[in-house]
């Protein structure tokens, strides 16, 4: 095979890759067709000119749970705007696609009938659709507070029964902020609240919300990324790095409910703090091995918060402990009163580190 066919094949491959790359980045580079339908519809101007909602949204007063959205057609607009400025359909430019999409999502996923409501509100749709009075509303859907101003839904709230109205909350893509109150010290409280209520949490929060904090690969993302939102709560905000030792000792075991020893050890190693054999500083006082009960302060502290010790001395660092505490060693028995385990002393890890089988 000559060079020419190979060059042609290579050229074709480069063109295909370039086209795919360009297509993938089109939005970012601004290479896209001119978007239509991006001008919000000016409900406010129509209202101020005395056009009632029902004049354009004809049939909405009798609309049930299914059926069309009752959005006005071009013919409806032309009843007043007799001389349109071009030949395009009105909704291609007037009315944002996003607003229309929200309405469609609600039509599909929200159990609601306009009939009854329109009559009850005496045709004053703005009582619920409060955003229609704004100049550039983001969404015309009524906030849930508008529903609750008439419907108490106490029984549904008590039973966490959202499905009565919200047929499919994730698909509806709304955020029911008005009734799920993340109040008080919710960062501390959410663990016990979420235990029985995963379904309720997942009605708003997707997978990545939990892993942003609890994921072991890159934990604490919200605190790291939302640095411009100081009002957001969180365990690791502000100068946590300095005070984490005190916070960990104040609530022994709390860190271990999310973090593994590895995550602590990796950071301490990077910061040159603590681990034996490293050139960094030791965090322990001079009396660490000699004063106090049960083999010095280190024994007491290790029992109170073993996770802190493991954060530096875990893994291969355990050999430091084994040197003194193996069976027959000068350190004596490390097990506290009442210790029991189903593990085999001579076969399982970590037991066999100290309980060396006799030959």
């Amino acid at each position, binding site marked *: 095979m000559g060079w020419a066919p190979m060059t042609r094949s290579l050229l074709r491959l480069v063109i295909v890759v370039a086209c795919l790359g360009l297509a993938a980045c089109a939005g970012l580079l601004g290479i896209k067709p001119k978007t239509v339908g991006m001008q919000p519809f000016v409900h406010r101007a129509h209202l101020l000119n005395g056009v009632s909602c029902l004049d354009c949204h004809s049939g909405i007063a009798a609309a049930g749970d299914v059926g069309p959205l009752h959005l006005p057609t071009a013919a409806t607009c032309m009843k007043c705007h007799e001389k349109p400025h071009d030949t395009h359909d009105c909704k291609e430019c007037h009315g944002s696609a996003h607003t229309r999409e929200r309405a469609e999502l609600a039509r599909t996923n929200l159990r609601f009938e306009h009939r009854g409501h329109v009559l009850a509100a005496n045709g004053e749709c703005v009582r619920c659709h409060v955003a229609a009075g704004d100049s550039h509303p983001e969404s015309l859907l009524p906030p849930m507070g508008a529903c609750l101003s008439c419907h108490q839904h106490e029984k549904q709230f*008590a*039973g*966490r029964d959202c499905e009565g109205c919200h047929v*499919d909350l994730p*698909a509806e893509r709304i955020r029911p902020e008005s009734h799920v109150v993340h109040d*008080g*010290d919710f960062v501390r*409280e959410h663990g*016990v*609240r979420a*235990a*029985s*209520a*995963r379904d309720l949490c997942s009605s708003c929060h997707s*997978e*990545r919300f939990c*892993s*942003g904090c*609890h*994921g*072991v*690969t*890159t934990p604490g993302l919200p605190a790291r990324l939302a*640095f411009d*939102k*100081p*009002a957001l709560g969180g365990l690791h905000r*502000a*100068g946590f*790095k*300095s*005070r984490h030792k*005190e*916070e*960990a000792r*104040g*609530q*022994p*075991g*709390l860190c*271990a*409910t999310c973090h*593994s*020893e*590895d995550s602590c050890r990796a950071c301490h190693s990077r910061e040159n703090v603590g681990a034996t054999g490293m050139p960094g500083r030791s*965090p322990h006082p001079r009396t660490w091995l000699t004063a106090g009960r049960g083999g010095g302060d280190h024994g007491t502290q290790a029992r*109170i918060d*073993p*996770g802190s010790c*493991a954060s530096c001395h*875990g893994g291969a660092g355990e050999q430091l402990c*084994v040197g003194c505490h193996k069976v027959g060693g000068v350190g004596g028995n490390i*097990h*506290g*009163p009442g*210790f029991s*385990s*189903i593990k085999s002393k001579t076969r399982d*890890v*970590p037991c066999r580190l100290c309980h060396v089988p006799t030959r």
Partner: protein
Amino acid sequence: MLVMQGEDRSKPWLSAEALAWLGTGADRTGDVLTLVVRARDVEGRGEARAGRFLVATGAIRPLHIDGASGLARTPWGTSLEAFGGVPVVARFGERDYDWAVGGRVAQRMAERSTLGFAYLQRRERGRLSGEEVGGDLAIVPLHNIDVATRAAYDLVSPGLTDALASVALRTTDWRVELFGTRRSPSRLLPATSLFSVLGDVPSTRAGTTVRWLAAPRLDLLATAATTIIDDRVGGDGTLRATLRTNDEGTASVGLELRRQAVPGAEWSGIRGIGTAPLSTRLAVAAEVEVARADHPDGRGDVWPWALVALTWHATPSWDFAGAAEGAATATVRSELTALLRASYAWGGPR
């Protein structure tokens, strides 16, 4: 950070999402936090997930796994969940014969309570590193009272691993919560760790949090708790006030005071925050904290920390933020850090 989420209108039962941290610096490599495909029954009878995700169900503490889970719900309020997979290791570290399996069965009762039981077994390099059973209970006895509890019991070194309880009463302006926690730190560690065999010295913490909407724009929050660790008794408290300076809540100032008086770990701190929009697209935020440990042990007398941030919503899709962070920490005398964030959102309602 790259966030991707996909849903199909024609197949509403199928969705996928991913969250990847692309990494910064030489020794901080990027990694994947979430990469999951989810299929669900649109009537709510069940769902299945596969990929990398976080298992958080019942009394099982959050577990990050590469695996799969399934959940089935019955019309009479029973739900059954099972999962299995390989625990995630940071930075694509090696994993030999590591796996975790577990599940939870729960029953909703009288539309006011849910009772669940969970089981977890975890292995590291094929060796048993944790086996737990747990229970959770949530009750809504009255429309303004919430009760939630959970407890896990270690089967390897038999005993209570941790137990949490919370009772909250709320009115329009007040919310009062009573809480209690009991943890056995040695049982929270993997049973393959030498530090898991030191014996059981549990810590117990109990207290109350009160939130008062003192004025339409003013929130006051107070927390007081007592902690018992071994034979030592301590406590901690927090006072926080937040004043929103506009009706939208986009501008606010706040002050927080904290004191922890647990023997050997005493510290005090004060923190102030402020946010204000400069225009419809520009906002500024500031945060200041000063903490002081009673026993600094050569780590500096006080640890001041401050941050000033500027956010610019350039377009509906583009969002930029920059900040300067300065601190004197327990490990360095002073440091100044610049933080930058640029984000772009493709498509979909925001």
